[in-house]
Structures are given as C-alpha cells and as structure tokens.
C-alpha cells in the first residue's frame, strides 16, 4: 500500500500535465472569446469535483447519523475539506474568467456562481463547526449540519433561478453546445483532477486517522497516570510502519 501512493502521484502528475497541454495547445481557439475561454478547462472540472465531494459528504453524514461508523465520519470531514478547496478554485477562476469576457467580475443573478458561493459558505460553516465544537458529540452535530446543508442546496438553486428570471441580467453567452474537441479536452481535465482529488483525499484521510490515533493515545496516557502493562493493547502499533 505504501508503494502505491508515490506511483499514483507520479502518474497523476503526468496526467495533469497532459491535460494541461490539451487545454492550452490542442484544444481549438474559441471564435467569440479567443484564448481566454480555456479557463473553463480548470473552472468546470473543479466545480464538478467539488459537487461530487459534497455529495460524498452528504452520503457519509447520513451513514454516520444512522450507524455511527467512524470511517464514514472521517470521510465526511475529508470530502468537505477537499470540496471546499475545489469550490474556492471555482469561485476564484469564475470572476477571473468573467472580467475579460463580460466586463464585470460578478453578476448577482448568475445562478451557477451564486449557488456555488452559497455552497462554499455552507461547507465552510460545517468546517468551522467541526473546528470549534467542544462537544464529545461533534461528529453527530456536524453530520446534522451537513444534512441541513444538503437539504438547502435545491432551495438555493431555485430561489436564485427565480430571482434571476425577474431581474435583467447581462447576456451570458456560451449556453449552447460545445464543440466535440472542447468537450473531449474538458473531460480529460476532469478525469485528471478527479485522480488528483482522490490522492489529496487519501492523504487527508491518512492524516486524520493518524491524528485520531495519537489523540486517543494521549487521552489514554493522561487517564492511566502510572505506566502499566496495558500499553501492549494500544492502537498505535497498528499504524503500519
């Protein structure tokens, strides 16, 4: 298992480099937007990855609420954190793209970017709760919050959608279909970023498992003031060194 990670990392890096090459060189230039449109090869895959990760968070939170499965809780935390990272990228690359193309950084009725902003806020509040909660039941509370957040998502989408139809918005082109060559490049980049996201999540997962083992060891240590023979059963030895 230990060998696998560096090998996958190298492969993923190569894949990402190839995807980048596709995005910048191979993909055709857009007739209307010129070369700036290539931002979508990073913007859209990041969005899809973030949504997938948040979906994983929702599923894991439900599993945790029902079964109190520790692995589900760790995965929920990991997917929320990495999801927020990708979501941040969507919110940063979006306006960078909008500025040259539409002339404005932000369109209030732009349903996709605005819903993504709300999504980012919801999962940030989830991470804040996990960080600042002092309860022994933090995981339950966070799982409950994740369920609330997920329930909110369709409401967010529809509220902004209707708001947008009532207020004139800048004409946002590009809603039409994509040239096959562009779609191909988009999918390649998405696949590359999915591999990358998988590796990041895996690392974060291992980090969390290690963190919890150490916390447990510390707690055990302070509980059993004197060092006695119980140490042999400590979970630390199974960290697979």
């Amino acid at each position: 298992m230990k060998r696998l990670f560096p090998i996958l990392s190298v492969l993923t890096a190569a894949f990402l480099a190839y995807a980048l090459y596709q995005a910048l060189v191979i993909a055709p230039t857009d007739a209307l937007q010129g070369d700036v449109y290539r931002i979508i090869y990073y913007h859209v895959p990041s969005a899809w990855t973030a949504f997938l990760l948040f979906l994983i968070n929702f599923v894991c939170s439900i599993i945790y609420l029902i079964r109190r499965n520790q692995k589900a809780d760790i995965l929920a935390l990991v997917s929320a954190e990495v999801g927020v990272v990708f979501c941040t990228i969507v919110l940063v690359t979006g306006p960078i793209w909008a500025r040259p193309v539409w002339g404005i950084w932000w369109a209030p009725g732009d349903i996709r970017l605005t819903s993504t902003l709300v999504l980012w806020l919801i999962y940030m509040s989830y991470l804040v709760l996990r960080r600042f909660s002092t309860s022994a039941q933090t995981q339950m509370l966070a799982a409950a919050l994740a369920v609330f957040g997920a329930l909110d998502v369709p409401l967010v989408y529809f509220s902004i959608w209707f708001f947008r139809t009532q207020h004139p918005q800048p004409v946002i082109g590009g809603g039409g279909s994509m040239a096959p060559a562009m779609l191909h490049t988009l999918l390649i980049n998405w696949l590359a970023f999915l591999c990358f996201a998988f590796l990041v999540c895996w690392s974060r997962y291992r980090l969390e498992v290690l963190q919890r083992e150490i916390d447990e060891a510390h707690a055990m240590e302070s509980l059993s003031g004197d060092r006695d023979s119980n140490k042999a059963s400590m979970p630390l030895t199974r960290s697979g060194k």
Partner: protein
Amino acid sequence: MNAVKFLFAAYIATWVIHLFYIGTLVRRFARLKQQLRDLGKDWSQD
C-alpha cells in the same frame, strides 16, 4: 492579447491554492510524526 493574462492568472491561482492546501497537509503530517516519536519515547521509559 490582454485577455490571455487572465487565462494564466486563473491557472496559476488554481495551483497556488492546491499547493497551499497540500502544504498544510505536509506540515501537519510532520507535526504528527514528531508527536508519534515523542509518544514512542515515553513508552520506552516504562
């Protein structure tokens, strides 16, 4: 073309954010490894 500046800004921003996050992971791993070593030392003093 002026607009291409934005293209590179977006790509660079993406990787800056990813590398920043990975950096925090690396730092935390290092700190945990240190704690592990400390814990290991304590036990050996049984």
